[in-house]
């Protein structure tokens, strides 16, 4: 009994509930019964909780996924009735070395997942007939160097996963001699090199951040006493600028009045006065503009001086990030030296 029995046409709770209850109670798989043909084999596989997929969109190759299923060694005989199986996933299932005898006959197999199963060195000898195999996942199994030795017979093997196994560096090196281009994961030599490169980069970024912080700190220290002085200067300049503006506005008014008068009277004296007030306004306006520029310059200096403190604070905060980056990278590098 399994989830497969849940009726597709029904959305009723009762049906789903019954299915899940039965599923939860099921501890043992249905016993192995020989399958007469491919269809029967597929049906049985699905009864076990296996899922059959198309391995590639363009051909008939199949993937059989037994993860989370109740499959046992004997059930793997269903593969004898299927053609073109290229991917088999058996992660965390109850299969053992005995099951590998059946898998070893799937000559079309390209990818095999045996991670976290009870397979051992002894089982690996059954895989030597898999001449098309290019991916083998042994993560979390008891396989060691003796098992790896059998894999020499797999000419197309490209990716081998041995994380948390008993495999040693010399076992890997020996296998890689026999199968050129084989990538073994993890690869401690490459991983260490990368950890070192990461740490060097993090260290250089940290050094740069420290240099930056020192520079902005120096800036902040220098500008702190300056800031008070600049504030006084700024106040003074602002006042000067305001005075100059007032003078300029007065002169402008006078010129306006004189100009109007000259227009009305049209006497030479009035015209003379208008010309004189115009000159005075021009001068006053120039004085205002320069006072304003001086005030703005002081304003900028003051802003810079008071920002220096904020910049230093922010740089300090950022330095913490670079420290963490460096520390994390260093820790990872150290894990290789410790031999984790």
């Amino acid at each position: 009994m399994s989830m497969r029995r849940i009726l597709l046409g029904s959305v009723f709770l009762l049906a789903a509930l019954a299915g899940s209850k039965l599923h939860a109670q099921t501890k043992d798989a249905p016993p192995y019964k020989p399958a007469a043909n491919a269809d029967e084999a597929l049906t049985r596989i699905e009864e076990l909780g296996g899922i059959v997929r198309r391995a590639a969109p363009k051909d008939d190759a199949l993937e059989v996924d037994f993860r989370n299923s109740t499959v046992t060694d004997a059930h793997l005989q269903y593969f004898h009735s299927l053609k073109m199986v290229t991917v088999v996933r058996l992660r965390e299932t109850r299969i053992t070395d005995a099951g590998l005898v059946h898998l070893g006959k799937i000559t079309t197999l390209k990818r095999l997942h045996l991670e976290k199963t009870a397979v051992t060195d002894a089982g690996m000898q059954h895989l030597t007939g898999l001449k098309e195999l290019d991916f083998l996942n042994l993560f979390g199994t008891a396989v060691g160097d003796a098992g790896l030795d059998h894999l020499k017979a797999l000419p197309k093997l490209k990716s081998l996963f041995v994380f948390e196994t008993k495999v040693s560096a010399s076992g890997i090196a020996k296998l890689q001699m026999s199968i050129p281009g084989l990538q073994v994961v993890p690869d401690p030599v490459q991983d260490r090199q990368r950890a070192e490169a990461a740490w060097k980069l993090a260290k250089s970024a940290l050094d740069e951040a420290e240099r930056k912080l020192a520079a902005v700190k120096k800036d902040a220290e220098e500008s702190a006493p300056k800031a008070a002085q600049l504030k006084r200067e700024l106040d003074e300049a602002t006042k000067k600028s305001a005075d100059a503006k007032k003078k300029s506005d007065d002169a402008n008014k006078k010129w306006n009045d004189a100009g109007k008068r000259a227009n009305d009277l049209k006497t030479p004296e009035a015209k003379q006065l208008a010309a004189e007030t115009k000159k005075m306004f021009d001068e006053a306006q120039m004085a205002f503009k320069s006072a304003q520029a001086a005030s703005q310059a002081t304003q900028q200096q003051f802003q810079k001086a008071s920002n220096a403190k904020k910049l230093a604070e922010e740089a300090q905060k950022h330095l913490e990030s670079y420290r963490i980056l460096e520390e994390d990278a260093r820790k990872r590098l150290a894990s290789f030296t410790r031999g984790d």
Partner: protein
Amino acid sequence: MSQPRLNVSRRDFARLSAAGVLSGVSVPWFETLAQAASIRRPRGKNCILLWMDGGPSQQHTFDPKPGGEFRSAATSVPGIHIVEQLPQLAQCMNDMAILRSMQTQINDHYDAKYYLHTGFRRITGFEHPAIGCIASHQLGTPNDDMPAFVTIDAGYDIRNDGGRLYRSVPAYLGPQHSPLAVNEPSRGLENLRQANSDLDARLEMLAGSEQRFAREYPLPAVSAQQSAFNRAVRLMQSPRARAFNLDAEPASMREAYGSHRFGQSCLLARRLIEAGVSFVEVFHRGWDDHNGAARNMILRAPWLDLAMATLIRDLKQRGMLDDTLIVWMGEFGRTPGDGNGHFSNAWSTMWAGGGINTGLVVGRTSERGRNAGGTVTERPITPPDYIATLCLALGIDIRQEFHAAGSRPMPVADHAAQPIRELLR
């Protein structure tokens, strides 16, 4: 058709009708009837989508420019540079592909989130399914104990909120493809505990009364409520629900991902994929850096670098990286230079693993000039291109059509989409 809508392709529909499924006769799931040649479910690829909500700056991550605010640094692939603030990730470049020529037109947060999650522009009165829901529909196993699509909220770091959060909607694919939401990764599914020993009896009683109601009112809302309820019950009774519990992970592994909530979310995502979930979306919020991208990015760099590098390495050593595509993205990038504004004209996303071609950069942005990085100079990528490529990378056939309300045929990806071939094997 009085039955709730079944979301299957036309071919399957015909086959199901022939098998008597649609007439309500009880038959096992159609795959058991199928000939080997008619099996359509694609190879089991999974996806972890890391969504940086608000729009991360490309020049402060994967597309640094000379004279920019962040210095660029070499990666493990000669010739490819990213910012120096991501040192461990830079050493994973062999397993990564950077997409630098995103050109997505929409600078408004919500519409952009919708566009980048669905591949279609948001329009009035019609809802498109999100990529996670499409994956659930296409890759998930019907009636599995585990949900096919889970979202994890990795929270805020800096409250630079990018407007309303986009919630993945299955639309016409059916309510069973809604995501299961985890709101706090370290707590998993808090309510997933059987409170009373007489639960089964209570459920049966409830089922009895609900059955009549469902028969009389076969409405989508009724089936939606029931599918969510059934799913919760199944999950509650499944030993596989342990995957949601981070405490089951060794302390060293939890530490390797970093104590930040984003790192723990990535670890949870890995556990869920391992347990059979097809699509996990982790969203981290507050990337709308209008007050300067540099100062915020440097604060995020430590946890981002550690979590993502660890995720890639962890999946790799477990032999899962080939089957698990990691996607890092937001709804748009940020203006060249300081990154203060939204920028959809030329920005970057990053993909890793998933059996795609890696160790490469797709597309290019302008290198020099007053506005370096302001334009795409090579292979612009539109949202339809992007979603189509994502579907193909996961093994989803983009030519198939779904049936929206009123039997309106809807393609998986827009017909105009040009998949990024150089990424696909």
